[in-house]
């Protein structure tokens, strides 16, 4: 039996009177690719924000390896090796590509303010290691040759890859990808799909929110369909495609 | 004159009202432009100065009647506001908030320079609008000019309420501030609304300058001081909220007067500021501002 890495229990979030997420249950198995799909405004990104600490749940729990992480600050959750990307890519545009990935090494290195200012030898060593590690991850996503460019000058597809490289540099146990293929052309989407499968092979659990159904259907082990903040169906791709409730949610009745 | 606890208190309140109304007027000017552009116009204080100086010139220099001079000065500064928008704000292609702010700082330096060259460096004074014999209320006294200030603030607030709630132009200005895209889709020309906001806030600045000049004597360099106070009041009231500005302005004025009267005149401004900061820390988007609005407009 595989281990359950992430579990949402009766999760609920309302903004004032508007309920964005309601009674949400979901379990994610370690090493799997789980996708969340659903129409616009269904509450998928809100769930990501709840898991990564940007929002506090109104009710319910988020269990990560059997510890409750709901309501913790984002950086604390990040230190627990939960990485994420953003729907509208959030690279650091003024920094170089390599530096972007090095930010991902933040939780894997220590030097603080005073040490950073004075740069003693061990700090230099740490920095050097960070750099080589970051380069490794850049090569991994296929951006090794772009490392000196500023991140803002990359194409969207490469920015998405960069975001993933930054997340991977954290050496996460679980990575949450928010629409990694949106805005990409067909070829880039295929590459992205391969990259995600490659990540899973490293034994990193992937949770995916995505609109590109070809991609979702191709790579997912489990799909959760969300509508009006509720999970209306879960199952493997074939089950989902033939589920009448899902078809109704998408195509209308 | 008898004096007692309550009389003194009332006296402090009167003083606070007078100061507060002036702050409120300046702050309202900030708010109008902020709503339309998301920018704090650092030249707002200069509008006040220009209004005051123009008024002095027209009344004592040309001997115009107060009403007439009032109108002409306001019109004059309004035109300057429009020119400022057309020449410095409108042409900016990629407006970032910080960039626009520095532009307004530059404009304020320019206007200050112009005022210095035209009106010289001395201070200019004019008579109170209607004499300086005080009215006595429960032992406390209040100057007619203070009543003028309170009255004009009241008139402007009412005019604002009418303008922004009952006229089409006012409503469309509000609409532009609320949702630029939706306003455009209704056929409203957003750029004209920005210009109008500069005109309005320049006009209000001028009025503030005109009514305060009989009390403080206007000189070209006074803008910064008035502007900074007004900015603080606008922020504490909640940026973009004119009612908030009025309440916060009067609150600040009264706080200053009370701390001056009961604690120490040496620190009266500091105490009032400290309280304002505490308010801001408790309510990070001002007394009456919405938290979404403050999140949207960042540097």
């Amino acid at each position, binding site marked *: 039996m595989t281990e359950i890495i992430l579990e949402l229990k009766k999760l609920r979030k309302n903004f004032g009177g508007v309920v964005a997420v309601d009674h949400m249950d979901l379990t994610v198995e370690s090493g799997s690719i789980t996708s969340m799909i659903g129409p616009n405004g269904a509450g998928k990104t809100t769930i990501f924000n709840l898991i990564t600490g*940007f929002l506090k749940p109104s009710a319910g729990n988020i269990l990560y390896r059997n510890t409750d992480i709901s309501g913790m*600050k*984002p*950086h604390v*959750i*990040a230190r627990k090796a939960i990485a*994420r990307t*953003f729907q509208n890519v*959030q*690279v*650091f545009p*003024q*920094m170089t590509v390599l530096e972007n990935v*090095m*930010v991902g*090494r*933040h*939780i894997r290195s220590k*030097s603080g*303010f005073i040490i950073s*200012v004075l740069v003693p030898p061990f700090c230099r060593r*740490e*920095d050097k290691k960070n750099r080589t590690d970051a380069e490794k991850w850049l090569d991994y996503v296929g951006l090794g040759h772009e490392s000196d460019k500023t991140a803002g000058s990359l194409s969207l597809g490469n920015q998405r890859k960069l975001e993933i490289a930054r997340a991977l540099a954290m050496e996460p146990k679980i990575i949450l990808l928010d629409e990694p293929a949106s805005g990409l052309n067909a070829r880039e989407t295929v590459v992205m799909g391969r990259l995600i499968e490659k990540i899973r092979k490293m034994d990193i659990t992937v949770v995916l929110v995505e609109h590109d159904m070809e991609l979702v259907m191709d790579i997912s082990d489990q799909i959760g369909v969300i509508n009006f903040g509720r999970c209306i169906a879960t199952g493997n791709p074939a089950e989902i495609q033939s589920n009448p409730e899902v078809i109704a949610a998408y195509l209308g009745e | 004159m008898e004096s007692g606890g309550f009389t003194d208190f009332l006296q402090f309140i009167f003083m606070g009202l007078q100061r507060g109304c002036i702050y409120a007027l300046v702050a309202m000017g900030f708010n109008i432009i*902020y709503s339309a552009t998301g920018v*704090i116009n*650092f030249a707002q204080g200069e509008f006040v100065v220009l209004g005051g100086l123009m008024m002095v010139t027209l009344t004592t220099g040309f001997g115009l009647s107060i009403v007439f001079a009032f109108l002409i000065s306001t019109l004059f500064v309004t035109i300057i506001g429009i020119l400022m928008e057309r020449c*410095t704000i409108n042409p900016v292609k990629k407006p970032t*908030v*910080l*960039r626009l702010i*520095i*532009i307004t*700082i*530059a404009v*304020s*330096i*320019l206007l*200050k*320079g*112009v005022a210095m*060259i035209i009106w010289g460096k001395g201070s200019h004074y004019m008579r109170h609008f209607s004499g300086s014999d005080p009215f006595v209320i429960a032992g406390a006294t209040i100057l007619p000019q203070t009543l003028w200030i309170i009255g004009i603030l009241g008139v402007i607030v009412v005019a604002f309420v009418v303008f922004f709630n009952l006229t089409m132009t006012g409503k469309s200005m509000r609409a532009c501030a609320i949702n630029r895209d939706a306003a455009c889709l209704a056929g409203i020309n957003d750029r004209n609304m920005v210009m109008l906001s500069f005109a309005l806030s320049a006009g209000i600045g001028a009025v503030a300058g005109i009514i305060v000049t009989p009390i403080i004597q206007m000189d070209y360099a006074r803008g910064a001081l008035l502007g*900074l106070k007004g*900015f603080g009041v606008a*922020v504490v009231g909640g*940026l973009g909220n004119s009612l908030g500005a009025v309440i916060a302005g009067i609150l600040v004025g009264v706080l200053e007067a009370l701390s001056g009267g009961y604690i*120490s005149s040496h*620190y009266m401004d*500091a105490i009032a*500021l*400290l309280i*304002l*900061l505490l308010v*801001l*820390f408790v309510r990070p*988007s*001002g007394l009456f501002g919405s938290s979404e609005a*403050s*999140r949207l407009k*960042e*540097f």
Partner: protein
Amino acid sequence: MRHKDYMGLGILLLVIIFLPFVITNDYYLGVLVFTALNCLTCIGLCLLMGYAGQISLGHAAFYALGAYATGILTAKLGWSSWMAMGTGVIISAGVAFLVGVPSLRLKGHYLAMATLGFGAIIHIVLIAAVNMTGGPSGVVGIPSLHFFGIELNTDTRFFYFSWSTVIIGLLLALNLIHSRVGRGLRAIHGSEDAAGSSGVNTSVYKIKVFMVSAVYASVAGSLYANYVNYIDPGPFDVMHSVLLLTMVAVGGMHTIWGAITGATVLSLLPEFLSSMSDYFESLGLSYQPDYDTLIYGGILLLMMLFLPEGLVDGMNSIRRITSTMFIRARKKLVF
């Protein structure tokens, strides 16, 4: 630290070493000393604004804290200047912490207002706390700095000393920027959310960088007190904070070099204008100092209208345009 930063530092160092040989007039060195002090403050402010993305309209207050710590402790209590400077740094950092914790939760104009209010309060205290600060009359008789037994009492000496401080400050700031912490800070500016999800403790980092920038301003203030030997509340008002902000924005706040450029240009501009007026008068044209204000405002306005990303970036684009023109011209010549 990157190659081009080393190069920049090297050039700056060379310029500074040789400048006093070229400029033998102490007056210009004096002007450049004040330029150095502004540069130092702007480096700190740039770390805060350009790299961490937080605005401060209260930096003159930290400048004042440094200056008054030095002034009061040396002139009134007879401490050594270095001890006083250190104490000023500690006080400024402490005050920055106390102010930063509640303020840095605010954003945009609200943060600007909070820091502005703080600056105004400090200025009022400087005026009102007569027993401690001397009030508007200020603190007199502040001794000059001694550096390994050399009294820094001439303009040349202080020029070298102040610019060395700038270079050290620059070096440390560049170290910081290109370190783990610096990347964290720049990440906050780029996207606070992404920084948080990468494990950067955004709120603590913001407070810390606020403290660092306060320290820069404080050191500059101490040097000011030691150089001028007299302080009063005049130079530390809110308008000075606004001026500092303008310097950083004019230079281009995304690089420290931009901040230094902005600080240098805007510090020299008034002296430059007054030299211009001498020049005009020597030509027999009547020129009033009154026009300086106008020209200053005009130049600032034009810079902001036409070089939106600051002088450094503006120069880059000018260079780009000229180089493409050059290439085109060369192509024409070849064919």
